[in-house]
């Protein structure tokens, strides 16, 4: 009798290591106090890097464990790599900021670590319950992070707003989950998918409503229009390194979760959800471009920019094909590098009397800090999607996929999807205005003041490397592995 009660832990070694690491670091921090923040940050990043190595070495076909609640395949591996890279960079970027502000708290990196753990579980979730557990672990840590500078009025407001709206979205998601469980009889993604595909008639109305509610709950987390209202306030109010963290890792994780929810349990219902995705995608692209035009605060601008980018990424889901999914995965990888680089620049916007975050403060940066201006210029051009920078290729792959789907049907061309692509490109043109405006301010306006020299070598390195990656994405040595892994990741969900 070799049967054991212990589930197969091997697929979750990374998560288990992170959980133990977080608890050990918490004990360490509690005994050493806030003066150990730097060491705890470095160790947190080390834990993430070790988890990254564990994730990379797991190179298998889909493996399920914990009663099929947890799945590891190539898609989850790729998304987890993105999440871990984004989180580790966020920890590195935050160190100098909190030191300069004299707000060092050892809990900060630990909360980032626990949030990342929640994201890992989200990416690997194969059950409505593990989905919720991962989502809550992530969200709860993020609420605290948003208001970690509790003496700042803006940060407190950001944390409270995020908490109230996040709790509302969790409620919507849970309500949807309960409807799905009630009408299908299982919470497991695989079982739901099988049950729905075997149903003789179409899915029950209850399942459709449940799915739409779950979709709405997840749309909150990726801040897709019409569930985007919290984003600008939270991005502006939260401390800048926290915003840098918010902008990338949670988005990647929630998007990965959204993709799995749409393709595994509700793959049969693609007709129902494609409409929702097309609408959210369109509305996000348009609002992200138009509303950003009037912004004067660069963090608020980045919030609208991220709403717009989520819209572009959703185009990949709307395509509904393996190529579309590959486009989305590539888009998120490029989005990660662009955003991390941009936020590294925003973190370097520090004058003698403190941080500044207005676009007008960037005036004449090309004369005072030419290297930073060049890097930020590259990021802005890339965010706008100007070829040959990487941002262009992200958009290129999703739009190519959606056009391919639109014309693939021999009976009738899908004009809805063609319209989506056309409006998307137009929105990207409108969006180019505010990205180019920043470049204009940096290069052609007279300098008003000078930023102090950035001490942190990590920040400079992140700026330099991500700018170089944006420029050199065209080289096959750089884009070939990304494209290949993205293809394998997409193939894990749609064959």
């Amino acid at each position: 009798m070799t049967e054991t009660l212990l589930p197969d832990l091997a697929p979750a070694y990374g998560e288990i290591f992170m959980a133990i690491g977080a608890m050990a670091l918490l004990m360490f921090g509690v005994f050493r106090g806030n003066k150990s923040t730097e060491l705890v940050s470095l160790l947190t990043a080390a834990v993430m890097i070790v988890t990254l190595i564990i994730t990379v070495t797991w190179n298998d076909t889909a493996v399920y464990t914990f009663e099929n609640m947890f799945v590891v395949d190539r898609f989850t591996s790729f998304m987890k790599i993105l999440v871990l890279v984004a989180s580790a960079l966020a920890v590195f970027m935050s160190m100098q900021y909190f030191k300069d502000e004299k707000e060092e708290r050892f809990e900060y990196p630990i909360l980032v670590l626990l949030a990342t753990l929640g994201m890992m579980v989200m990416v690997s979730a194969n059950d409505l319950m593990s989905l919720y557990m991962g989502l809550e672990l992530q969200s709860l840590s993020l609420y605290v992070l948003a208001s970690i500078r509790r003496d700042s009025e803006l940060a407190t407001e950001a944390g409270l707003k995020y908490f109230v709206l996040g709790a509302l979205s969790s409620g919507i998601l849970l309500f949807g989950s309960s409807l799905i469980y009630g009408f299908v009889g299982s919470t497991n993604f695989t079982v739901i998918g099988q049950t729905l595909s075997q149903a003789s008639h179409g899915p029950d109305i209850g399942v459709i409503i449940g799915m739409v509610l779950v979709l709405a709950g997840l749309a909150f987390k990726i801040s897709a229009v019409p569930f985007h209202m919290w984003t600008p306030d939270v991005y502006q109010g939260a401390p800048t390194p926290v915003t840098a963290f918010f902008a990338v890792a949670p988005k990647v994780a929630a998007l990965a979760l959204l993709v799995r929810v749409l393709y595994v349990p509700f793959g049969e219902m693609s007709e129902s959800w494609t409409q929702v995705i097309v609408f959210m995608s369109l509305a996000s692209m348009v609002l992200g471009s138009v509303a950003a035009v009037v912004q004067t605060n660069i963090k608020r601008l980045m919030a609208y920019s991220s709403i717009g980018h989520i819209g572009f990424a959703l185009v990949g889901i709307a395509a509904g094909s393996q190529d579309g999914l590959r486009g989305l995965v590539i888009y998120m990888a490029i989005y990660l590098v662009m955003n991390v680089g941009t936020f590294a620049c925003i973190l370097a916007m520090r004058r003698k009397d403190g941080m500044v975050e207005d676009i007008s403060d960037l005036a004449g940066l090309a004369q005072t800090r030419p290297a930073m201006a060049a890097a930020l210029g590259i990021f802005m051009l890339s965010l706008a999607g100007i070829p040959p920078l990487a941002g262009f290729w992200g958009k290129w792959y999703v739009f190519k996929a959606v056009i391919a789907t639109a014309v693939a049907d021999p009976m009738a061309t899908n004009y809805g999807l063609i319209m989506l692509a056309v409006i998307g490109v137009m929105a990207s043109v409108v969006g180019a205005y505010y990205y180019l405006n920043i470049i204009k301010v940096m290069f052609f306006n007279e300098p008003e003041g000078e930023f102090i020299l950035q001490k942190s070598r990590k920040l400079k390195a992140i700026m330099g490397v991500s700018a170089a990656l944006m420029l050199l994405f065209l080289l096959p040595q750089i884009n070939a592995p990304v494209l290949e892994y993205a293809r394998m990741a997409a193939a894990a969900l749609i064959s």
Partner: protein
Amino acid sequence: MIYAICFYLFATITVFSAIMVISSRNPVHSVLYLILAFFNSAGLFVLLGAEFIAMILVIVYVGAVAVLFMFVVMMLDIDYSELRKGFQKYLPIGGLIGLILLAELLLVGFGWGLSGPVTTDPATAIPALNEMSNTEAIGSLLYTKYAFLFQMAGLILLVAMIGAIVLTHRARPGVKKQNINDQVMRRRGDAYDIVKVKPGQGLG
């Protein structure tokens, strides 16, 4: 026979204390009656064979919620006669909500009675009481099938705890704490000096 006596005893005291919760003048008495109601409901659950829920009711509701109520009632200075003033004014709307709730309860009750036997899903089957107690059944699911979710819930609670400390804990300056290590390490020389005073000169 004993079963019936127990049931009527618990049920009567529950209803009585529930009425007293809303009718007693002193809010502290209300909370105490609430605790009595909880204890008797726990007794009813035991009679139903749901001993786990009975324990949870006592531990969670009496141990945490009611004590919290007690704290709030005693710490906050609320003028209860002031709160009671609108009683007549709000009676119609309150009564209406009560009637709607009653109607819904009756609907559920009759609907349940009319719908016939419920088919149980084998995935959620409850083991017979003589085979396994409730607590054991819940535990054997929670620690095997749902161990992963159980651990995740633990982590979420850990985050909640860290969050509460991060957002509210302040190190106050000037608080005198007993440091046993310092006390033990104290030497005679730290406490006093021996000064040789010459006669007629004082300590200057």
